[in-house]
């Protein structure tokens, strides 16, 4: 709580600055979000695109940046030192983050697996969306969450014109924050907004029979579900994930706080208040793990926050995309080893 005002001021200014400079919340100029596509041969253009908005690819950076911010907080909160940290961020932040994220191999490969699972599942039902590779934008959801509305419009217009330049008519989003921004916030800033936006789980759910037929194995295990706040309360995507799970023969167990009454994972404030985030996420993990040690999530922020407790509490957090990967790309032994019985 000490020096929160100065600290928040620094965080807001840095975020705004990063997005204005590079279009990326971390201010990273080099392309870090395309590596997962290797071997998938996704088309580069098309009216329907898969938009990851870099969210799953950011996970190694989020892990490191929250640690860096927490340790640099005493400096960031002081006037003179904050300037030094800021200048350092502009010059070296990019490189430091890249080097530090090299150590986060697990989360990087998990993110890759999640996205590959989604692409495989969409292919299985006959959908072959394009991917914008280097041109893929970040939606600016952090600007919205932190009330930086004044800077959203510029960013939204840039992203929209980029999508239009690529002749995009339909976007398939992979995470609830991106879908929320594109579906609910962008139309407020763009007159005659004409891009159709859907979450991939909505599309899979509409084709659940085709998905079932394409599955190379039945997962036939029990999982407890952690619904994402944005997914349920903002987007109303609740039953879709349950229907898809049924197609994979997964038994979903419901916690007390579920569906529209789901409890937050604590992720949205991790950028600044790590202690509070940890208390919130731990409470949620305790509730979920009392039902099953295997937790399903459908959002990258929830994934990164809940999986922190994998070792401590003997749990395993699975993203829905990862389970699709397991069902569609056959490797029974690995799955059985990872599942916490």
């Amino acid at each position, binding site marked *: 709580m000490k020096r929160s005002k100065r600290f928040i001021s620094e965080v807001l200014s840095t975020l705004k600055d990063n997005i204005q400079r590079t279009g990326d919340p971390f201010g990273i100029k080099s392309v870090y979000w395309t590596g997962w596509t290797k071997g998938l041969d996704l088309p580069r253009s098309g009216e329907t695109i898969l938009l990851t908005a870099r969210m799953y690819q950011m996970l190694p950076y989020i892990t490191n940046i929250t640690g860096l911010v927490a340790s640099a907080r005493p400096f960031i909160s002081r006037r003179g030192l904050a300037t030094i940290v800021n200048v350092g961020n502009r010059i070296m932040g990019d490189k430091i983050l890249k080097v530090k994220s090299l150590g986060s191999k697990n989360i990087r490969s998990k993110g890759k697996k999640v996205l590959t699972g989604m692409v495989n599942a969409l292919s299985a039902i006959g959908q072959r969306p394009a991917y914008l590779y280097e041109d893929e934008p970040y939606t600016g959801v952090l600007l919205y969450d*932190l009330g930086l509305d004044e800077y959203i419009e510029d960013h939204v217009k840039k992203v929209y014109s980029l999508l239009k330049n690529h002749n995009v008519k339909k976007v398939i989003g992979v995470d609830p924050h991106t879908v929320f921004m594109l579906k609910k916030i962008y139309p407020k800033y763009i007159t005659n907004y004409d891009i159709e936006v859907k979450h991939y789980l909505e599309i899979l759910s509409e084709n659940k029979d085709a998905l079932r037929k394409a599955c190379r194995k039945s997962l036939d295990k029990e999982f407890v579900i952690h619904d994402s*706040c944005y997914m349920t309360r903002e987007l109303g995507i609740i039953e879709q994930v349950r229907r898809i799970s049924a197609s994979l023969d997964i038994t979903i167990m419901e916690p007390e706080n579920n569906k529209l009454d789901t409890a937050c994972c604590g992720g949205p404030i991790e950028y600044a208040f790590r202690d*509070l985030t940890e208390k919130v996420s731990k409470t949620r993990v305790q509730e979920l793990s009392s039902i099953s040690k295997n937790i399903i999530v459908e959002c990258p922020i929830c994934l990164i926050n809940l999986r922190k407790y994998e070792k401590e509490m003997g749990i395993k957090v699975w993203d829905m995309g990862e389970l699709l990967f397991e069902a569609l790309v056959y490797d029974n032994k690995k799955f059985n080893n990872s599942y916490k019985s």
Partner: protein
Amino acid sequence: MDIKESQSLRDTLLKEIAKCRACRFCIDVCPAYQASEWVENMSPYGRLQILKYLINGTLEEDDPLIYSLYSCLQCGRCDRLCKAKGQNLEVANLIRLGKYLLSQGLVKGKKSEKV
């Protein structure tokens, strides 16, 4: 945000916050409140009161108040409770708009204006 827009936002916020009937049902479901040893400042109701007093000038921005407002998770659980209790305030969005108002003074390199 120009002065006219800022004034209109303040008016909207005060008008909306005035609709709160202080039933405090939103408090118990807030994860940040639960994690903060039941400090009311860390609850949706508490945050709305902080916003109200910042806007009408009774309080001045300081560290604890900024901490309270920026520790809102924007999870919207309070909205659901408010709706269930018949008032239907968009509490999380009001707090977010409060942050928008505050950001005028917090983002560096901008002409700052006290809330």
